[in-house]
């Protein structure tokens, strides 16, 4: 698509969308959001980029092959599940670590559940982009 407005605007839009997707990912546990939604929003940003500037530029901006991102996400999700076995629980039991926990606030919660969600995010992100990029180049 040969629109210079879209081309320039998309660079910023894509960045904002990726940032927004990370925000949706992290807020998912207590508010609407989560890994799937984050992944969808993030990939939408790059799909917009591909439509505006062409898939070559989009692939270069992504730097990594989208298939690799998807597989990495799958591996991270698996590791998050297996990590529970290291602590003696059943597979995929969430292991929680609270930093700065005080009597009236939970502090900063870190968990394998969040790692699993990050894995889901990467899977969705990578899968959608691999299909869309291939279709854009193909057809």
């Amino acid at each position, binding site marked *: 698509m040969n629109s210079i407005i879209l081309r320039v605007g998309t660079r910023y839009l894509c960045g904002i969308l990726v940032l927004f997707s990370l925000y949706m990912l992290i807020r998912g546990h207590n508010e*609407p*959001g*989560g890994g799937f939604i984050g992944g969808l929003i993030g*990939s939408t940003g790059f799909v917009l980029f591909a439509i505006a500037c062409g898939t070559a530029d989009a692939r270069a901006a992504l730097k990594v092959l989208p298939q690799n991102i998807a597989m990495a996400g799958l591996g991270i999700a698996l590791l998050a*599940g297996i990590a529970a076995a290291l602590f003696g629980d059943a597979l995929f039991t969430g292991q929680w670590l609270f930093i700065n926990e005080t009597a009236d606030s939970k502090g900063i919660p870190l968990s394998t559940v969040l790692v699993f969600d990050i*894995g889901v995010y990467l*899977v969705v992100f990578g899968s959608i982009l691999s*299909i*869309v990029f291939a279709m854009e180049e*193909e057809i």
Partner: protein
Amino acid sequence: MTDTATATKPTGNGLVGVVPVGIALLLFGWFLSLAPAIADGQSLRFVWDWVPSLGISLSFLLDGLSLTFALLISGIGAMVLLYSNTYLAGHPQFARFALFLTSFMLAMLGLVLADNLIGLFVFWELTTITSYLLIGFGHDTEKGRRSALQALFVTGAGALALLAGFILLGTSMGSFELSVILAQADELKAHALYLPILILILAGTFTKSAQFPFHFWLPNAMAAPTPVSAFLHSATMVKAGVYLMARLHPGMSGTDVWFWTLTIAGAFTAVFASVLALRQTDLKQALAYTTLMALGTLTLFLGQTSGYAMTAFATFLIVHSLYKASLFLVVGCIDHATGTREADVLGGLGRAMPVTAFAAGLAALSMAGFPPFLGFIGKELKYAGILAIGSEPFLFASALLLANALMFAVAGIVALRPFWQKTGKPLPRTPHEAPWPMLLGPVVLAVLGALFGVNPDLLQVSLVDPTVKSLLGSIEDAKELKLWAGVNMPLILSIATVALGTALYLGHKRLRSALGRLVEAAPNFDRGWDRFLVGLKGFAAWQTRIIQPGVLRRYIFATFATVLIAVGGTMIARQAWPALPDLSDVTFQNIALVLLISAGAILTAITSSRVAAMAALGVVGIGVAMIFIVFSAPDVAITQLLVETLVVVLVAVALLRLPVLEKDGPDRRPLDAILAGTIGLSVTLVLLAVLETPIDLRLTDYFEATSWPGAFGRNIVNVILVDFRALDTFGEVAVVVIAALSAYALLRTTHPRKDP
């Protein structure tokens, strides 16, 4: 005269040729050490629970019958492996061959030792597969591939029937253990399912042991290397069917069906095969047909239940394995030395290959049934057994007489003429004596045939009597093996056999041409096989054209129509109509949404503009998302909106760049619309019916209660996804990756990637 060819040829394959021989010898020694216990009358059993919930265990039983087979398999296996180390010396794929042959030997041992029906079936199929690999070892010839495939299909189809028979047998007798089943013999014979079980199991055993009309794969299997034929098609694999029938004999014999089926099939195969054996000029083919004859004879005797018949069976089993394996290996030596196997061309080899000639002579004398060889004892017992048959002894005895006479003639053709007769025709290579690893097998086996003939007591006590005990239940019924039993009917029949056999041998050339004309006129199963395969492939192609035409519309139509018939048909059949729902709290919002979605759907269906169809699809998606918002499901609504956007993008990319297609036939959209509408209606009715039943809210309560305290999350949907049901999500995510990679691969293969 030195033969430079052998001077430069490698004489072995190193370690990979010797290790299998060692394994076989170890197994043989182990079984031999267990022989005294079996001779005492014990039977050894070993059980390992494999799938206890289904009653499948790996149980092994060593009694007389299985010990006989195990010794034959491991002993002949050791010699065949040693032989092939030299026969295939320097062959680039020898390691593979050794692997296949050893796997086959182990699978066969598992088969004869198995006491569990399913375990036995697993080993049965393992022998089918390994023998396919072995027959197809010469896979660069068309004939080799075809023969291997034919053997696989015929025995494989029989094996399917066998599995069905086994399952019926196991479920009707309450256990899959053979020892348990055979102990309930009377119940089995009187059972309502006895006939189907028998038919299915016999289908399996007749295909494996090449009884008429499933015999045609065995002569073609001679395309395998000679050691393979010596092992599989004379001593072991084809005898698997005979073994199974013998193993089931205590439980299933005695009925008329069993008697007549086995007797007629066995007798016919025996006579038919021995007549055809006379016609062959290729030595290996002649031996293949005589193997068929032996299998027919063994089947014939398994049909009966008298002591003579069972003793004849046990003895002939051993006799046949010994001389047949020996003769096959001798033919391999001849082939290796001279380069040909044609009986018309070979002659005068006695001088150049004396040891081979000696082994061949001994084996042939055993095959022809001369005293004092074991073959003679076997023949006497066979005649005694056939005369003790329940009905029509005269008919079957004459059939057996004819078959034995023909065997006598073939023994002469295969083992005597190549060595002692002069043909004057030139041979492709100058013959020389075979190296000792190739001679050891034939000599040992042939000498054993002579030794056991002169002194059969050891054989009787250790193998024959326990085998008869396995078959009939007690040692008492076993008859004695002796060379001279007085002048009786069997002896007279033996003399008649010798006379008839000699006449046939002397006139075999003239008989051959007459037989040739007869065989051409008869229906040929082998050619029928080719036509059957062509027909099968044609049927498969026709069926695929109808079911998988490549048009996406037709797949979706077929899928939805089937769902409609299944769901709607069930509702109509059971009159399970839901009551009309309570529509009193329907707001203006809901009605507007329904109208919006319906408008979008209808527009998608009737418009002929691609852009309008895409936009209408988007409207439908957004309408569904708004339903989720109205009913307070924000996560689902967000996901739906985003997915909708992406779908519109993808569809735009695909649809807008497709070329304008020509109309191919009348407009089918009204029919599709009707189908779509009806499916929608039936799904609605199903949902209304489901909503009528009270919902079990236990899970909902649990999630509500545990989400914050236990899982530290207030968004219950997300907590369910990534914590409570994380394993499910992991599976879904894996599917997403697989789908994406598959789609990517499919998109990539049609066009090469353009330059970035």
